């Protein structure tokens, strides 16, 4: 019965978090199919470490850390068929709506960031983690998170993703 309980617990957890994990994965890789692969691989790893995950104070955070690390590891080691960011054509819309234009700008700007900066931005600004929490998830120092965030924001400002905000309007 112990294993059934474990499997049921795992399945229930994943079922309730899959949509959220998929969104985080999409922000990291900008491709839904790849996001599915990332989440699938991550939850497989999560299953093999479910005992440890169960002991974690923040199980959501544990799952997210596995996901981000899987993404970063793939960037380093996998022979993923990657296309250059911003190369994707916008199909069927010569003049995107304003909201869509902002989304497209953001997608291209995020895709142009180096993977670690992108992960930092997603954790800080989508997952609303503090600098310290982000550092813990990425396994680096707070100073490193600050510098990664700073560079990423600078790049986003240079793109049109943040151009209409704050100082860019000055």
């Amino acid at each position: 019965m112990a294993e059934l309980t474990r499997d049921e617990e795992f399945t229930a957890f994943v079922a309730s978090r899959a949509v959220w994990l998929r969104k985080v994965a999409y922000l990291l890789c900008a491709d839904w199919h790849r996001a599915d692969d990332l989440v699938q691989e991550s939850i497989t790893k999560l299953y093999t470490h479910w005992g440890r995950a169960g002991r974690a104070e923040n199980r959501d955070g544990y799952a997210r850390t596995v996901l981000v690390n899987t993404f970063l590891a793939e960037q380093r080691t996998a022979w993923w068929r990657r296309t250059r960011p911003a190369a994707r054509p916008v199909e069927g819309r010569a003049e995107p709506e304003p909201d869509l234009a902002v989304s497209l700008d953001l997608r291209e700007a995020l895709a142009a960031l180096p993977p670690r900066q992108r992960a930092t931005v997603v954790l800080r600004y989508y997952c609303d983690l503090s600098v310290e929490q982000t550092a813990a998830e990425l396994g680096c120092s707070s100073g490193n998170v600050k510098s990664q965030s700073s560079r990423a924001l600078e790049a986003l400002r240079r793109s049109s993703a943040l151009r209409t905000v704050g100082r860019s309007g000055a």
Partner: protein
Amino acid sequence: MNGEDEELSVRMARYVAAEEAAAPPSRVDPALAVLRGRELHRRRVWTVASAVAAVALSVGSFAVLGSGGGAGPAGIPAAPRSGSPSGSLPPDAYRKSGPTERSSAVPVVGRTVLTVPGRFGWLPDSVSTVEYRSESTGVDAMAYGDLVDHDRVQFLLTAFPEGVTPDVDPLIGAGDGLRVDAAPVNGREAYWVTSSDASFAQGTPSRLRFRGADGIWYQLDSSGLPEADREQLPLRVAAGVVPGRYTPPLPVSLSSLPPDTVVSNASLRHAAHGAAPWEAELTFQEQGIHYVTVRVEPGQDGPPSGSPGPSGSPGPDANGFPEYDPGLCSSGYGVRWCVRELQPAADAGSTMPVWLTRVVPRGSDERSWSADVLP
């Protein structure tokens, strides 16, 4: 957060929500994660058992294949190939009835469920296990050693479809994908796939592509090799590869299958040096969501004994992972066979015994195994 930070948070949430509205249906499958998670754990446990058994059973084999090895096939089951169909059926011929949206089936031709594009010949002594796998994501042959400091020697053999000349990805790591000529393999064209990103290239598995005698491009991914062997060992393994489809005989067949059932995984793993141990595993997907695994491994001699039943209650191992629960098992004729479902259905008490009766073991003598698996 300052205003700019908050604005970025809002834009990201809005962006992902807008993208999600047009996203394809999710393919994330918790049951599949359980299946593969167990398989990963099982493989780790199995390689340890394999190493122990190999030492115990086949010291002679090690001597024959010792340092320097030989050019002949190493560790491939010597059973005659039987019933390996050369014809092909329509792509959906494997389906027992109408496909379901969540089906993830392996290619099935006739009664055969496991056909790999080639098989290994020479392998270094550090390899303890050869495995043939077929999943919805592809088929391959894999040879690997035991875990040492969380790493192990591994060779993964795949092939491109006939007539396809592969390209090198334009972007690999943070650099350009590169094609670097390799020494010819058996006198035929070969090259390494690498990256202009030096740090990426150093830390990745080496990827060798070579053309087989059948004109097909094969790909050999190698990892866990000492730096000094990263070029020569893959070339030597590639030279020993026996090109061409290989349908390994399996120690099991099914007498019947329930409606709307597809094969989602099929694998046979075998000690690389010597005849035993071995293990075959088939996973079936019923009604698109219910997974049932049939596993066969060496067991007791003699006719089937006693009534089938679970063998041992699972408890956590030293790593907190539950002991492998084989499910409902029976044994005889030197074989033990088990059926197990991933997520027990309400009527599991009645369906698993029925599944067990569908399993037809072919004994421990590999000469009696067959590629004909499905009813």
